[in-house]
């Protein structure tokens, strides 16, 4: 449900969580990101930082500059000035990320889990069946057939939570219970309706089925894309996975190791919610690649 009016929920003495709704709906994230953008453009002095999430936005404010009671009023006025979500337009970078689907490394991690923790079907088979797909090849085709919208980053620094922009590529999958104790670096996985990329080898609960050799985290800042941070993504980025084979993965791994890998980043586009909504109306969401 999209709320008629956003809810303002206090988080201790410095934070407020603004809830726009309670469903996984891209529109709610567009609103959250539109608001974050407006706050920055308007240089709102009492906001220390913001963090958008799927259907909400966390605001860290300075209590020395604004009282909690006044904060809601100020925010509502800013939200009002945004207009309907259709009006939102955001600069949006696009990353092409090569990835091996149905790869041996995530399979090894799943096999390890099955041997040590709990029996389960191989993740791509599990997700394919759950979503009524004919086989794992179709799953790979469907998952890689869309741009992913970076809705938020967190749980681990630089870990992006992404949503498929093409409704024909929507999939769903429950998380592991209990979670895995490790996941290979660069793993691509799904939990609920979101897709994530693991920046380093962390524990995790998403269903895993692909791997990219391209670092999304670079604490030595060896590549130019990391000049401003050690983390690749920002909310509002888009990612398109380009399926490759194991041989190409190993080749790219070498270019990453020697620092010559050229990131494939497209940086001239502006994401228009109006155009996006017009486009998805032309699509049959039940069609599958």
């Amino acid at each position, binding site marked *: 449900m999209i709320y008629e009016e956003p809810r303002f*929920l*206090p*988080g*201790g*003495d*410095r*934070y407020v*969580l603004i*809830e726009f709704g*309670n*469903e*996984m709906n891209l529109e709610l994230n567009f609103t959250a990101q539109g608001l*974050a953008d407006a706050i920055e453009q308007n240089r709102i002095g009492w906001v*220390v*930082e*913001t*963090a*958008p*999430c*799927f*259907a*909400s*936005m*966390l605001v*860290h404010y300075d*209590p*020395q500059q604004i*009282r*909690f009671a006044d904060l809601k009023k100020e925010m509502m006025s800013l939200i009002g000035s945004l207009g309907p979500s259709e009006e939102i337009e955001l600069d949006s970078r696009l990353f092409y990320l090569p990835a091996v689907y149905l790869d041996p490394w995530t399979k090894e991690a799943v096999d390890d889990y099955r041997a040590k923790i709990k029996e389960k079907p191989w993740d791509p088979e599990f997700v394919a069946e759950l979503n009524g797909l004919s086989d794992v090849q179709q799953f790979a085709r469907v998952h890689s057939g869309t741009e992913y919208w970076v809705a*938020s*980053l*967190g*749980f*681990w*620094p*630089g*870990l992006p*939570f992404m949503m498929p922009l093409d409704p024909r590529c929507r999939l*769903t999958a*429950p*998380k592991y*219970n209990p979670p895995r104790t490790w996941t290979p670096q660069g793993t691509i996985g799904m939990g*609920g*309706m*979101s897709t994530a990329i693991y920046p380093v080898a962390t524990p995790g609960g998403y269903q895993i089925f692909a791997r990219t050799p391209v670092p999304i985290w670079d*604490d030595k800042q060896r590549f130019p894309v990391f000049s401003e*941070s*050690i*983390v690749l*993504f*920002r*909310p509002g980025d888009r990612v398109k996975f380009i399926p490759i084979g194991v041989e190409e993965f190993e080749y790219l791994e070498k270019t990453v190791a020697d620092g010559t890998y050229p990131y494939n980043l497209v940086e001239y586009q502006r994401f228009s919610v109006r155009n996006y909504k017009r486009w998805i109306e032309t699509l049959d969401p039940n069609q599958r690649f």
Partner: protein
Amino acid sequence: MLEVIKPGLETSVQDYPGRIGFWNQGFPPSGPMDSWSFRLANVLVGNEPGAAALECQFVGPTLKVQRDGVIAVTGADMQPKLDDQPVAMWESIAVRAGQTLALSFAKVGARAYIGIAGGIATTPWLGSRSTFHKAGVGGMDGHALKAGQAVPVGEAAGKPGRRVKESARPPIATDKRWTIEAVPGPNDDWIDEAGHERFLSTDWKLSSKSDRTGFRLEGPDWTFTEKAHNKTPEHGAEPSNIIDQGYPLGAINLAGQTPIILVNDGPSMGGFINPYTVPLCAFWKLGQSKPGDVYNFKAVDVDEAQAISARIRDLCTETSIE
């Protein structure tokens, strides 16, 4: 410059308020857990209250001073000694090149802070010198101090013989019991009345599985309102599951039935509810508590919590020095 002879359990460079502005990339602020003691250590040696200093946890370090200067030790009493002679806590002390400062373990409290005139001068990273060891950034090469390292220190004179008034020091509990302020929200409407009453009347025990990422609490199960049981499937299967949301610093995060207070190095978002949030003014209590200590939570509203913060901020100034 300070040479690390013994690193202690986990000693790290921190500054206050820490690494701010990168929450949306998943970076927590890090910084000192007991910012009250931390800021006073800096004020004693003549630094800005937020200057970089050392946080010592449970077992303190042994450091060799390489240059004349002024230091101060605040927080938990780790029985600091200079060349084997006991020196006072909460006081600025002259140190000379070649002397050794040794901190032992804390019998009362958990964290001590070593401030040094000039401040710790490691290279800031994303605007802060605070150490975030999970990601290996900030501080000394992204991690806690290691034996043999040379910790760089800025240039400044400092004055010895300054002392923090007793009334201005945080009252560290000696009976292992703490009353911790908690502001209801963001997700307080997911817990039923009985659940709220239980939370506020229980003796919660701090688990030893606690660290700067999260403080895990042991106690009774939580009970939920309709909202937690009747929700769309994308929220997740457990009553405490919610669509992934941003986590405020200090959130009492309910992972299944386990409450974990998210502290300085904790995750910035996730899929569990936060029925209460510990305000930053109470973090010094978290910072000085030890596994096995008992927490009783007291509900306060936002204004009350902010007022306490303001009082502590006013205490971390020259007015507290005699």
